[in-house]
């Protein structure tokens, strides 16, 4: 009969302990050391591996690790060649010729060719507003050989390089032909990139962590890194995107050194983090976010220009910024339609701002607009603090003018669903919702969908203004920065007249970074992990 002895039990226990520990020892030999691994927590989870399928920034963060772009925006917002080596523009400015640089290789070992680039451009353009804007002016995209391709235009268009280089989502990432030929409305199945990192699927656990290992076959450019342009030299072995939705836990984890980077520490905890000598507070996206109050053009009262203009006299941006950020150095007011600090920032038609909040004037204008006291439905996203606070302030300000505001609290995902509803506000539609966009995108009249004033085809709120569209087209063909700035002034003067949206401020989100992490590059809307060192 089988008999359990004390010695036998001890031996058995040791054997189990040894076998349980063994896999760790085996893995320990292949895993990079902690000193060569960066653990980073961002504002959200990676929603999909397909960066073309969504406009969510996290998909671009993940895409930027494994994919490369033909051009990249540098720190001064200038497009610079990235996968492209030599390039040229014909004298009539209608034909671009691009040659891929040497050494580009997919992580499956095959070379990157124009056979990959062409379908990538088509798939991306099918989903991207900027891409679609460009494609309307493109006559033909053709491959001359494995390394050279051309983009031929129907008319002069000054934005080709800017659009190929942009960091606003979806970014024009180049994919392998196999994935690039996927229906743009379907997700890609495999992640095979030619970028500075490769996704380690064995250690990645969707929703928990995404493991990116240095791509040893990546050949960086020789020029210095700047923005997402220049040499993407990877100086660590591994970067792990950790999904940690609880802000309090993430702050504690960065304080304890369990993570190296936290993108969005809450503003009220910043003083606590600033006092920690092991942590530095860094602003990586200097243009930050611009808060938008979006008005619905389809229904009264905001189908009337006068009522929309009146809103400019109601909103006092400094109150909104104070409510969310306190007396923070990270927030400011934003009277420019193109955001503060962007190349297009200007002060055209901003008397409403200079004159300050004016309830009496607003009241008068609503009267002129024929406001009849009907409820104005304001969607309040209660789970996003700055949107929640801003909705409460806006409702109060509007009530002070005698407007009948009906605040409808819900979570952000419900706002996202509800805002697409074109029905009347009392039948499931809406009058106002609050959101924000990247300052970088706000500064570009073409790339941000919210700037279009194409009525039914425009972004939520469906603003319609022929002059705005005419000016946007004029801006797109302007070929110098000065010319663009001049059109930018005209655009702003017109925008603050027909008022497609209002702003409630602009702010930057400082990140909490362990003090031994260096080399993070300031870029709008993507966080690059090349050039970064640990220790």
């Amino acid at each position, binding site marked *: 009969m089988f008999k359990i002895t004390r010695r036998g039990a001890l031996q058995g226990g040791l054997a189990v*302990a040894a076998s*349980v*520990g063994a*896999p*760790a020892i085996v*893995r320990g030999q292949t895993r990079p050391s902690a000193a060569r691994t960066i653990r980073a927590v961002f504002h959200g*989870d990676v*929603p*999909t591996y397909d960066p073309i*399928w*969504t*406009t*969510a*920034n996290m*998909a671009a963060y993940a895409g930027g690790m494994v994919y490369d772009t033909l051009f990249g925006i540098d720190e001064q917002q200038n497009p610079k060649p990235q996968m492209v080596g030599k390039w040229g523009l014909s004298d009539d400015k209608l034909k671009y010729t691009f040659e891929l640089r040497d050494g580009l290789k997919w992580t499956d070992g095959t070379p990157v060719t124009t056979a990959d680039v062409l379908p990538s451009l088509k798939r991306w353009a099918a*989903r991207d*507003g900027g891409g679609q804007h460009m494609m309307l002016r493109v006559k033909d995209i053709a491959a001359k050989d494995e390394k050279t391709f051309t983009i031929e235009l129907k008319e002069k268009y000054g934005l080709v390089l800017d659009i190929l280089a942009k960091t*606003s*989502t979806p970014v024009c990432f180049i994919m392998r032909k196999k994935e690039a030929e996927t229906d743009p*409305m*379907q*997700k890609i*199945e495999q992640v095979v990139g030619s970028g500075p990192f490769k996704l380690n699927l064995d250690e990645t*656990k*969707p*929703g*928990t*962590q995404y493991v990116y290992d240095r791509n040893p076959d990546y050949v960086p450019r020789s020029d210095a890194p700047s923005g997402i342009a220049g040499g993407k030299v990877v100086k660590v072995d591994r970067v792990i995107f*950790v*999904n*940690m*939705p*609880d802000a*309090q*836990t993430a702050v*504690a*984890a960065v*304080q*304890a050194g*369990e993570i190296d980077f936290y993108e969005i520490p809450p503003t009220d905890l910043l003083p606590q983090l600033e006092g920690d000598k092991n942590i530095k507070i860094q602003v990586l996206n200097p243009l930050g976010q611009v808060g938008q109050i979006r008005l619905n053009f389809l229904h009264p009262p905001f189908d009337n220009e006068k009522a929309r203009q009146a809103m400019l006299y109601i909103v006092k941006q400094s109150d909104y910024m104070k409510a969310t950020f306190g007396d923070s150095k990270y927030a400011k007011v934003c009277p420019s339609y193109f955001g503060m600090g962007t190349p297009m920032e200007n002060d055209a038609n901003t008397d409403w701002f200079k004159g300050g909040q004016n309830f009496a004037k607003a009241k008068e204008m609503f009267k002129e607009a024929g406001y009849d006291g009907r409820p104005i439905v304001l969607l309040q996203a209660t789970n996003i603090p700055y949107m929640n606070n801003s909705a409460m302030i806006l409702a109060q300000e509007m009530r002070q003018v005698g407007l009948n505001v009906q605040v409808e609290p*819900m*979570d952000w*995902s*419900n706002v*996202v*669903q*509800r805002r*697409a509803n074109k029905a009347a506000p009392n039948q499931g539609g809406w009058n106002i919702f609050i*959101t924000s*966009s990247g300052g970088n*995108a706000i500064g570009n009249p073409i790339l*941000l*969908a*919210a700037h279009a004033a194409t009525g039914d*085809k425009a*972004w*939520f709120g469906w603003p319609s203004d022929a002059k705005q569209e005419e000016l946007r087209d004029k801006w797109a063909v302007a070929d110098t920065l000065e010319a663009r700035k001049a059109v930018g002034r005209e655009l702003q003067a017109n925008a603050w007249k027909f008022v497609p949206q209002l702003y409630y401020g602009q702010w930057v989100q400082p990140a909490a970074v362990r003090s031994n992490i260096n080399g993070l590059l300031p870029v709008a809307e993507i966080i690059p992990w090349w050039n970064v060192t640990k220790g």
Partner: protein
Amino acid sequence: MIAYIVRRLISMLPVMAVVALFVFLLLHLAPGDPAAIIAGDNATVENIAAIRKALGLDEPLWKQLLVWVWSLIQGDLGKSMFWNEPVTTLIRQRMEPTIALAGTTLFFAVAIAITLGVTAAARVGTGIDRFVMGLAVVGFSVPVFVTGYLLIFLFAIQLKWLPVQGYTPIAEGVGPWIHNLVLPSIALGLAYVALIARITRTTMLDVLAEDYMRTARAKGVAPRPMLLKHALKNAAVPIVTVIGIGVALLIGGVVITETVFNIPGIGRLVVDAIARRDYPIIQGVIMLFSGVYVLVNLLVDLSYTVLDPRIRY
């Protein structure tokens, strides 16, 4: 007995069917659109519509329900709308941390709670009794996330004894595995300890007042065997019932604890899925939790036959 078990297992089917229907309708009739979330903030109405079509969300509700139920009958919980991975794979990946957390919590909470409850009953009216009951009130009143943050602040940030967050699989060593589980288990177990300790004390006091206990005392049975062999065994049925009912409390607590301590378990999976309206994951996990709860209740019922020989099915 076998016939009873089979009958109970068969009776699970209509329960699970009602749960399935309820969960499906609740999710699909509630506001929120996964396609809009996937598309991102700058997406146009056309983009969102295209994604909705790709996900099959443009189909009539009854058709979506039939497709899901048919898959369910075949043992297929569907695929995540976001990661394109089968829900069963995602649940399998997240199973270990949840079982580890719930298991260790259950084990230690039951051991500690019964000890406290028996001690309080044996010393009724004394300082020990009042202390244990005070502890139980606090344990039951303080929410898991408050306890969690306080534990993190004290033991991880100030004393640096334990990690703030995360989970180490047992395959990477028993030491690191336990290291990661200590704080979440305490945070999760506190309410459970309070519940079981209170019911243990109350039931023990009832049993201790019975005639046969007085007889045992009169016959000179020593206090410890009297408490553990005579009283506790007779008090076991209600205690085990509460332990079983408390599994629901534990499941709810796991969801919060995993979020606070960033443990990649099933609780986190479902919280993330709810925020994104990833219907297949939410439906799959709720079906799993419901099944576990029904099975635990069955086990509790079966345990009565062992604890009280008078009970027969």
